[in-house]
């Protein structure tokens, strides 16, 4: 800043700047309190995840172990061809003329046919529960960012 700049700065600093109304802070803060109240979701304030992280880990490990067990045990057993959703699908595929393609698919599907239908139901239910849990947890984190009047 040169001399002229400094002189000018002194002049400007001698001037009083404008002030808003005396209740400005009060008005802003009441709008902010209202804003905070909207952002806050009391219903979800105390929401706790239905299934804890630890339980989720146990469930995932158990499911993987179940898959491994079924895969290993089905290698020596005759593939179940008369039950389950995958049997029906693979049976329909078998109807195609292309024998090689259908046999590859059958081999791949064979793995799934040996898994009981109840396992798919458990997997679907678990995924649905996990999705719901994640959504609700997100809401809870969002709402707990702001607390009023603390």
């Amino acid at each position, binding site marked *: 800043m040169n001399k*002229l*700049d400094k*002189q*000018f*700065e002194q*002049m*400007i*600093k*001698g*001037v*009083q*700047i*404008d*002030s*808003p*109304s005396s209740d*400005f*802070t009060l*008005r*802003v*803060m009441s*709008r*902010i*309190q209202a*804003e*905070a109240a909207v952002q806050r979701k009391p219903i979800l304030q105390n929401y706790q995840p239905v299934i804890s992280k630890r339980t989720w880990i146990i469930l995932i490990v158990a499911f993987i172990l179940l898959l491994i067990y079924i895969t290993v045990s089905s290698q020596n057993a005759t593939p179940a061809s008369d039950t389950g959703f995958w049997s029906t699908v693979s049976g329909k595929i078998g109807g195609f003329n292309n024998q090689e393609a259908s046999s590859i698919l059958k081999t791949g599907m064979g793995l799934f046919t040996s898994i009981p239908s109840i396992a798919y139901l458990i997997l679907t239910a678990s995924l649905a529960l996990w999705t719901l849990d994640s959504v609700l947890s997100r809401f809870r984190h969002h709402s*707990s*960012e*702001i*607390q*009023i*009047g*603390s």
Partner: protein
Amino acid sequence: MNKTDDIYYIEAVRNGNVQAFSFLVEKYQKLVYTLALKLLKKPEEAEEIAQDTFIKAFQKLGSYEGKSKFSTWLYSITYNACISELRKRRIEFKSLDDRQMSDQDEQKMHDYYRETRKEDQEKYLNLALARLPEDDQVLVTLYYYENQSMDEISQITGLNVSNIKVKIHRARKKMYELLHEMLKEEVYSLL
């Protein structure tokens, strides 16, 4: 962390203490309002924009990374809100004409100004400032009153630094010219 630091209160708000935001409102309300008033001219509109600025700052506080000063960040919200408001009204800034005072005349004018009464100084300075184009008033206020650096003003206004330098230099000279005219009129009126 000092209790007078902005960051102390920003962290308090982030941790859920909404009331801590009132410290920041108290501290910056005058400058935010002044900037809005210089651009919008109407006190009611300036007050509304100033309020909106603080609400927006509160809402966006999570995205404030602390890379710039809180005041710089806050003034940029104010400036942008005013510019959008002016665009809605399709108002364009006036520009300064090219006539400029020499540095010697500027010095003489400053000395003459210092000799006038204190209360007159403030009156004339306010009048001269009000006659500058709106964006130049903002630049002068930020640079000379608020001591924001050229880089910070660039962040606030989106203008490049060299452009800001030129504008501030011209605004200062223009203000001396305006003061000169006003004080000359004053002398004539006394005679």
